[in-house]
């Protein structure tokens, strides 16, 4: 009984940046009941064995937004999908410049990966999502209101927040658009960004808990949703809707 319910309720879900961090954590969470297609910068060989069971994988480097968008579209088609129930545009990169000023390369890479790629992919995936009245999820950050430690990263996430706000209004009734803002999580994001949070890291949430909150926020289709301690303590990782 459960098996047949699961199969008929299985959704086609694309997750970008699905090879590590929150992307991989949410993929693991959703893999039990849904069909997944993940994308990331790592090669097929590196990802062999690291993917959740049954998930497909596309190598797409978001640092080249136009090319990665083409590659994703082709990968979805080659996987045999002609529609999407969910797209989770999660790929992200951040830098913590030593003097508080990002150089041109860091600014450009941050915007390309976090915002431009997400924007072009939102546009390219729209017809696939519209076919199934699906949900487009941008993964923002609680830093979207501004940060002196990660100025360009915070700015790129503000861009996603604003893009989601306007697109949600434009696409109302056709595709649900939402932005989720996770708080600091125990992933390798900070180490990659060149920032040591020190003892503060003890206060970061576990990736599995944030992934659980992401999954229920995705099911709720609401926007914007902040995923931090406040939501965690009110049961966000255990209560709420299931996708």
């Amino acid at each position: 009984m459960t098996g047949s319910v699961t199969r008929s309720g299985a959704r086609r879900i694309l997750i970008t940046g699905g090879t590590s961090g929150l992307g991989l954590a949410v993929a693991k969470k959703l893999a039990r009941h849904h069909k997944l297609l993940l994308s990331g910068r790592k090669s097929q060989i590196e990802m062999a064995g690291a993917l959740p069971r049954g998930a497909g994988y596309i190598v797409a480097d978001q640092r080249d937004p136009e090319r990665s968008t083409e590659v994703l579209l082709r990968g979805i088609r080659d996987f045999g999908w002609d529609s999407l129930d969910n797209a989770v545009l999660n790929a992200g990169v951040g830098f913590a410049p030593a003097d508080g000023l990002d150089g041109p390369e860091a600014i450009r890479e941050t915007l390309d990966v976090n915002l431009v790629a997400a924007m072009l992919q939102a546009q390219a995936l729209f017809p696939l999502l519209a076919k199934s009245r699906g949900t487009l999820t941008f993964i923002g950050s609680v830093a979207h209101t501004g940060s002196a430690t990660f100025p360009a990263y915070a700015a790129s996430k503000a861009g996603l927040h604003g893009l989601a706000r306007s697109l949600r209004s434009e696409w109302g009734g056709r595709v649900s658009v939402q932005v989720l803002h996770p708080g600091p999580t125990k992933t390798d994001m900070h180490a990659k960004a060149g920032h040591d949070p020190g003892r503060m890291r003890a206060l970061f949430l576990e990736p599995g808990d944030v992934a659980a909150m992401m999954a229920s926020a995705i099911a709720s289709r609401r926007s914007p949703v902040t995923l931090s301690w406040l939501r965690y303590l009110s049961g966000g990782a255990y209560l709420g809707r299931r996708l």
Partner: protein
Amino acid sequence: MSAGQGHAAGRKPGRALVTGGAHGLGAAFVRRLLAEGCEVTVLDKDPAGIDTAQVDFIRCDLASRESLDRTLPDLVTAGPYDLVILNAGINATGRFEDISAEAHLEILRVNAEAPMVIASRLLGTGAFTPSATLGFVSSLSHFTGYPGGASYAASKDVLAVHAKGLRAVAARKGVGITVAFPGPLRTAHAERHAPKGADASRRMDPDLAAIQILADMLSGRKTSVPGRATHAFAIAGRLMPRTVTALMRRLIYRRLVC
């Protein structure tokens, strides 16, 4: 809406840089600064509309990374500045899915990436005089959302929040940051992107907006929201974000796509 940053009110800038100074609000800034006896450097794609005898003109297409990288050293040497206004902006309106990917990309490059790169470089190279002002021109859309101009709205949010993140490092260098959030202005830019038949007389006079924004920048305010209607909209957008975005959809998006 704003707080002082310790600048002398009514200060007169000696040397200023205005990006996108050939047209619209940028040209209004330039007119006002020249009238006050300021030396002005204008960066724009094309000198048409500019009296190059009156200003230093630097040609640069902010949509091109190569063009900006070539220009950055000249921008630094043309300083140090008392006032820099990162004003250049472009737009494309309509259904998000119908606007070309190239246009969306260009909007983010010109409106967000280029001013971020310029601001970081100027702050990093000491291209400001003591107690100078760095001004960013964002948009009222930061408070209201902008269905029909989603990539424009995103770009202006990027700019506003980047400016906020730079405040502390700029203050350590003695530079104050002001972010301006103008609403619809009576410019050719607005005319091109507003719904057909929209009433232009209700848009603010760009010269008036420029005067108010400059006054806010030079008195060290953190933000500048010129005009009463713009101010009211910004507050409403903060208090009732969903309602105001829905109103923007009715006022703009529905009329753009009909």
